[in-house]
């Protein structure tokens, strides 16, 4: 008996020492561990590098270039890239394409951030309430999300633009509403399974309130799948904003949006195709980096979500 205990405790001791050494290493250099885990995942790494480059350009660029995105110069229209003074050339009104690209990236990021925060907060709240409380609440949540889920995003956005007028607000609301439905569905599905688990029963038996169970015990468990799904919908948000701006319903001139810039350059494809291709590459790069990060996060957090996430539709 004692021998067993001894050997066990010596194992435990060795283990403790290793953990302590590792923790010490992490404490002395917390970035090393994170970097190691991070760089091991190729998708996450490539996506983040690309993302940091584009986001950095959008955030830092205007600090050096100024943010005079609407300044016209009719003498310098349709300049090709690498012209003196204009790194990426100019558009039909002689506006600096590089500055407009930076601001356009900011607009895309703003829409994506707004949409994703709405979707995460509302979607997780609704999904947890529906899944955990069940009954009447659940039925309402389910029918509302099913109702919204069936509609193509672009149609919802056009309807809202009809009601609210053109601009970024209807785009944010439309993409937000559809994303809320998506996140609610997934979170609800997770919570329905979690609800019957022992730790929830235990908390309930101790007299913990419903709100506290949801906040302290369920939330950490649904965070990972919700975040993975949200990262996919960041890409959807960026594409939707660009598409709606392209047809004139999103950002209104002179505010540049990547989609609007592609549309503006459309008439001059033969003359100077860069006016369309530069913002187009911006959109593709942003979407690619976000999708890669999403794939990487999925591999890290939840390999089972692979199938479901692939079925996500952009429309």
């Amino acid at each position, binding site marked *: 008996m004692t021998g067993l205990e001894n050997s066990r405790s010596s194992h435990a001791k060795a283990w403790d020492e290793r953990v302590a050494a590792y923790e010490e290493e992490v404490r002395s250099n917390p970035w090393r561990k994170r970097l190691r885990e991070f760089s091991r995942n190729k998708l996450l790494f490539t996506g983040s590098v690309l993302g940091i480059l584009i986001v950095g350009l959008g955030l830092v660029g205007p600090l050096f270039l100024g943010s005079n995105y609407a300044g016209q110069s009719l003498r310098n229209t349709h300049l090709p890239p690498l012209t003196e003074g204009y790194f990426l050339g100019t558009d039909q009104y002689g506006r600096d394409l590089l500055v407009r690209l930076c601001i356009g990236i900011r607009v895309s990021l703003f829409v994506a951030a707004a949409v994703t925060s709405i979707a995460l907060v509302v979607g997780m709240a609704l999904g947890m309430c529906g899944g955990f409380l069940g009954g009447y609440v659940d039925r309402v949540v389910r*029918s509302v999300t099913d109702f919204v889920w069936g509609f193509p995003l672009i149609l919802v956005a056009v*309807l809202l633009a009809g009601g609210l007028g053109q601009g970024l607000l209807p785009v944010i609301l439309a993409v937000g509403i559809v994303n809320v439905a998506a996140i609610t569905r997934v979170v609800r599905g997770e919570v329905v399974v979690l609800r019957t688990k022992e730790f929830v029963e235990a908390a309930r038996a101790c007299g913990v309130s419903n709100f506290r169970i949801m906040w302290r015990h369920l939330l950490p468990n649904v965070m990972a799948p919700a975040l993975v799904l949200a990262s996919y919908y960041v890409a959807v948000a960026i594409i939707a904003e660009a*598409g709606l701006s392209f*047809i004139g319903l999103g950002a209104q001139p002179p505010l540049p949006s990547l989609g609007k810039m592609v549309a503006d350059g*459309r008439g001059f*494809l033969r003359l100077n195709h860069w006016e369309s291709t530069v913002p187009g590459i911006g959109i593709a790069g942003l979407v690619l980096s976000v999708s890669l990060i999403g794939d990487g996060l999925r591999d890290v957090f939840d390999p089972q979500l692979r199938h479901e996430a692939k079925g996500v539709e952009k429309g």
Partner: protein
Amino acid sequence: MKRAASRLVYTLIVLFVSSVAVFYAIRLSGGDATAAALPGSATEEYREAFRDRLGLNEPIYQQYFTYMGRILSGDPGNSLTNNKALTSMLSEHGRNSLVLGGTAFGLVFLVGIPLGIVASLRRNSWADQGIMSMSTVAMAVPNFWLALLAVWLFASRLGWLPSAGCCSTKQLILPAVVLAFEGIALTVRMTRSSMIESQNSDYVRTLRAGGLSEWRITCKHVLRNALIPIISLAGLRIGQIVGYALIVETIFGWPGLGQVLVNAVLRRDYPVAQFFSLVLVTIVVMGNWVADTGYTIANPRLRKST
């Protein structure tokens, strides 16, 4: 049967709720309806008379019922900008949309299913990898950008196809392919995974053990079972195509329902916006219902539970 009936009731409720939502959203829009129809110099009395004539001063729920009554009796009103009857606009633009959407819908399955089958039969070969990576790219590229690339390549550079317009076969090709692109990618993926799932199932192993040729197993058994979910969920593609049609029709200047709706929203022509939103919403809701029914018929297990 019970499920089908309850889904029908649900679909009708969805239709009612969305018609109310569309009506309120567009009628309560911040803009002044008279701004679209009347010149800026119109006097306030004239504007008031105009609103009276359109019934804009009645309570909103009454307007809704009057409006739905008029739609159901076949007279939804006229456009504010060119005074065309909405019914004639519907038949004219609806036909164009039907041609474009129908072609895209056909392409989705006629191209997507064979490619998916090839990928699944030659799994992990270069053909499979090529098809699958193409479909990944196709799902990541925004369709308006794809449209632009297609115009640049086939219209500007090569000069093979016109860049926009309606309604010759040549003008149909580019918008239809762009509209179908993502659906094709999705169908390829679904077909491939569904085929692989059937190929690995027990009955196929039994058939193999029974000595049936691989060709026969694939054609007679695997294919049939694998295609059921894809065909039965075809209704979902309708909604997707309707959504994308709004963008693709606008880009290619294809005078369909989507382009009319987008232009109406841009010009604040609210009768047109309202009516065509309702039309598109109805199409989407019915498409979802068809998908649901098809899926229930194909999966007997679902029939029992509601």
